[in-house]
């Protein structure tokens, strides 16, 4: 274990990933400490789980928290130094004031490295290298009649068929302080000049020709005083701006309110419906003379057992407008997933289909754990079956399955698969400009912001949405757990 740990730390160090190198080293020390010291037995059992939890759950969650405070998005993916490098690399353009050179490719004798041989307008010959252009004395070369070089002292000139086209890309020779010569095809090379320079001390970029100066702004771009923006930008810490965007920018605030309302409504309604349906069926079957109980329970377990992701796709097929079975059975031609309210209803229906069997299972377990004596005593006291339900069965069942209901609620709150596979969150709102749709819940909306936006994928904004989602679940669950505990006492 120590060996593999040291190997991992070394590997991370090799990648200059200091955070992970440090984390691996610390974990290694902690693990050694725990497993070699006798007194902390408990941690020997807990630590593997904790380490995995930290790496694949806590760290990404915290990282999302950080990303939600940056402008990480398309156009702002790189760290600042890399972004500036890209801006400078992109700033090379052909210098039209210098005519292109005629070019031939040669190899140094006994070497396999290709170099450019450049022929100027006045038939002067140069050998190009990273250091610059070296002029060749006229005694060292010979031209043929068509003006092609056929001899160059110390070099072997390649015929066109010998030139590997891919190798041309890597050829470049220094020309001036801010310019290079690069091949444009098999015959010619041009001078490329840098149009921008970066002054590291001032942290500013200057346009060489005009002297225009670009300064970094707060949102991760280089901007000049007249408002010209250089791309790409870089990642910048922008505090709570992403969160404010959701509340202030009508492009996001308008759909967000609807998405949150539907998220909450969807979770509450589907949980209540499936709980009451499950409980209702349990009560219906909970009758001694009803011998078919096991038979029906077998049916009710089926949606619970069937792989959910596949079953959603089956439901989607059943509900197709033109060729779906549902429309054929009822002789209707309803676009089940195309109308906002019908689509919402369908989402609820499929959710209830998938989750009521679970409720049947747990309410059956809960109700059979209520002792027979209590119910018999109540019956002797003359309680009606409705009273028994209201004062004994319902409260006792609720009490005992409260923790499960809370967990199911947070599950329903982030039930991504059904939305993603059934409706993709659609139909999309027609009166807002964003990606949000009528059946989008927070988590699917988040996913769209991060991955559906095409050009405008915005990871910072998506992370902010996921933090908002987390806050909702956490607040609701914690208060629900507290209530459940009060029930206990």
């Amino acid at each position: 274990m120590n060996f593999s740990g040291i190997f991992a730390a070394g590997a991370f160090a090799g990648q200059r990933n200091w955070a992970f190198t440090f984390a691996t080293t610390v974990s290694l020390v902690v693990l050694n400490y725990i497993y070699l010291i006798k007194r902390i037995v408990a941690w020997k059992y807990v630590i593997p789980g904790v380490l995995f939890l930290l790496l694949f759950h806590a760290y990404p969650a915290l990282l999302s928290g950080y990303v939600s405070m940056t402008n990480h998005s398309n156009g702002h993916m790189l760290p600042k130094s890399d972004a500036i490098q890209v801006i400078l690399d992109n700033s090379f353009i052909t210098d039209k004031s210098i005519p292109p050179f005629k070019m031939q490719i040669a190899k140094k004798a006994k070497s396999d490295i290709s170099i450019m041989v450049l022929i100027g307008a006045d038939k002067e010959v140069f050998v190009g290298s990273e250091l610059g252009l070296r002029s060749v004395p006229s005694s060292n070369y010979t031209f043929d009649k068509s003006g092609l070089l056929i001899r160059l002292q110390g070099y072997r000139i390649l015929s066109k068929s010998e030139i590997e086209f891919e190798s041309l890309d890597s050829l470049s020779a220094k020309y001036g302080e801010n310019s290079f010569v690069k091949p444009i095809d098999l015959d010619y090379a041009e001078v490329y000049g840098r149009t921008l320079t970066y002054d590291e001390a001032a942290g500013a970029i200057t346009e060489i020709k005009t002297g225009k100066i670009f300064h970094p702004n707060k949102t991760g771009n280089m901007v000049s005083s007249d408002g010209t923006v250089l791309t790409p930008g870089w990642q910048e810490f922008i505090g709570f701006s992403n969160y404010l965007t959701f509340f202030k920018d009508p492009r996001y605030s308008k759909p967000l309110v609807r998405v949150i309302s539907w998220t909450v409504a969807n979770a509450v309604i589907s949980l209540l419906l499936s709980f009451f349906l499950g409980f209702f069926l349990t009560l219906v079957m909970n009758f001694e003379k009803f011998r078919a109980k096991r038979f029906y329970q077998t049916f009710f377990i089926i949606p619970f057992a069937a792989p959910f992701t596949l079953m959603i796709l089956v439901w989607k097929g059943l509900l197709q407008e033109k060729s779906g079975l549902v429309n054929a059975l009822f002789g209707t031609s309803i676009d089940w997933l195309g109308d906002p309210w019908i689509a919402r209803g369908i989402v609820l229906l499929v959710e209830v289909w998938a989750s009521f069997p679970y409720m049947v299972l747990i309410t059956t377990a809960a109700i059979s754990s209520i002792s027979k004596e209590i119910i018999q005593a109540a019956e002797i006291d003359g309680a009606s079956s409705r009273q028994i339900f209201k004062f004994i069965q319902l409260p006792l069942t609720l009490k005992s399955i409260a923790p499960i209901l809370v967990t199911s609620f947070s599950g329903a709150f982030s039930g991504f698969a059904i939305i993603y596979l059934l409706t993709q969150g659609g139909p999309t709102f027609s009166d807002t400009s964003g990606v949000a749709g009528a059946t989008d819940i927070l988590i699917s909306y988040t996913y769209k912001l991060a991955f559906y936006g095409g050009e405008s994928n915005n990871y910072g904004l998506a992370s902010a949405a996921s933090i908002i989602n987390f806050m909702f679940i956490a607040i609701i669950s914690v208060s629900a757990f507290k209530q459940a505990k009060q029930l206990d006492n």
Partner: protein
Amino acid sequence: MHKKIKFWTLHILWRHIICGFFALFAIFPVFFMATAALDKYGQLSTSRIFPSSLSFDNFTRLFEYEDGAFFIWMRNAISISIAIALLNLFVGTSAAYAISRYKFYGRRNLLMIVVLLGMFPTLLSLTTLYLTLSSIGDAIPAIGIGTRLGLILLFTGGALSVGTWFLKNYIDSIPTELDDAAKMDGAHHFYIFARIVVPLCAPVLAIQTLFGFLGGLNEYLITSIILGTERNVTTVAVGMQSFLAQNAQNWGAFAAGASIITFPVIGLFIYLQKHIAAGLTAGAVNS
């Protein structure tokens, strides 16, 4: 006799009607999936309840897709899911044991953190999870993006969860006298864990492992992001989804594949019905 019939109509019949209705609701899509799989012109869009003529053409078509890609997906999904289930079983059970039996420093906070983090769905940190795994992969390619091992380790991050808490409650209900007696005899703590506590939890653990296995089999989104649709590594859930995306008209073959996965699981659940209810509610239902 007359009395019996009267009793039956009054107390039993309506129960059959209600249960029957919802039983039909429950099996409706599953039944239809099977029909579409067996129908000769089998397409989910043929909109017939009963197949026009039975045939296994859909299965043949599925098996021939990309030289038996279906079997490779199945093999991947099963091996990955077994690994996830066993790792989670080991990591989760040992943690639940320690939290139940030892009053160590940080115990309450650990539970709080586990439950709170559980509310932060892995899905929400999909981007950062991807970044984490890819930076690990830069250093150790064997567990990076696109590797099955990486995916397995990633899912082990969920080993400590609300489930651990339920399991801890269950272990709480095992009397400590057994541990104490073993301790008197000089048993090592690992012996107590492996020979006393684990066997007593065995039915619950078996069910939890089954659910862990099925969770891995079912998981779609994270698997698709980490493994992609590359034929040799990906799982059947992702493979079938991409199959359907590429062959939209080929519902029949899709239904055939879905049936192959679904029916054994349903059979297993019906066979284990009693234990499943017990395993689900152990430690969660306060009795």
